[in-house]
């Protein structure tokens, strides 16, 4: 049965509290996974595992997140490509590629100054909720 936005949000919040050892109050929609909640690279695999478990309702049909779909794992390779990044700035081609790979992120702020340093700000709690909503939401 499809889940409401609130149900999805609560489950994602619980997953992030357990995976990152933060308080539920810190897990706000705009909170950035790295900068605000302290996520490190290995935590993203942990989050994926915990989401899969939390959103599995029938053990016979486990919910699976395809590799790279929620957290693109080839960004370092991508960002070494001169077509996409020049002098630390992300080129229009790079931006288009990022948007293609991260359709669940909000680019409004990032569009104003798309640099490598600020790229991790694209991964917020809302990104995860949007992704999950697209999979199991109403």
């Amino acid at each position: 049965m499809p889940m409401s936005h609130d149900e999805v949000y609560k489950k994602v919040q619980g997953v992030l509290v357990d995976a990152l050892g933060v308080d539920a109050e810190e897990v706000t929609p705009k909170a950035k996974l790295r900068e605000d909640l302290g996520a490190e690279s290995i935590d993203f695999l942990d989050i994926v595992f915990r989401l899969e478990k939390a959103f599995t309702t029938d053990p016979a049909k486990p919910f699976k997140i395809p590799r790279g779909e929620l957290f693109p794992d080839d960004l370092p390779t991508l960002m070494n490509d001169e077509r996409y990044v020049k002098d630390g700035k992300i080129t229009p081609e790079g931006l288009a590629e990022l948007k293609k790979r991260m359709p669940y992120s909000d680019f409004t702020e990032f569009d104003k100054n798309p640099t490598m340093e600020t790229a991790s700000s694209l991964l917020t709690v809302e990104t995860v909720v949007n992704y999950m909503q697209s999979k199991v939401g109403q």
Partner: protein
Amino acid sequence: MRWLWIDKFVEFTSRTSATAVKNVSLAEEHLHDLYPDFPIMPHSLIIEGMAQTAGILVGEARNFSEKVILAKIGRATFHRLVRPGDTLYYFARISQLNEAGASIEGVVRAGADAASPLVAEIELMFSHIDKNLAGAAFPEHNFVFSDQFRDLLGNYRSGAQIPL
């Protein structure tokens, strides 16, 4: 000293679960390091025992082709002290497994059955490092699984008994 914190497997179901046994002996040096005159097994080494049990389970799931490393201790809750003479049973179950790694739910008891005293509950996450650290180079050979670790599993599977 050898860095082996389990003595043998007593159950092993590929890609699913494993149970290993550790007999705690007063002769082991580490028991005496925390408190003088009150030997206990350090919690960190109980976690290591679970990591070895679960690490072999995760490694075997892909026929030891991956370099499996302990990436994260999600939770470790301890319920009682472990003293000389205790026999620990490490029950490890794969919760999630994919090409990038695995997560494990582990329970440690001072006995073989579910009614035995609960020692610890431990959640671990393992990473297949070649799949997760893009650009980082590691040696070709699988340095994680030494012969000692593989022998533990081999002995269980062959039911190794040496007749006198």
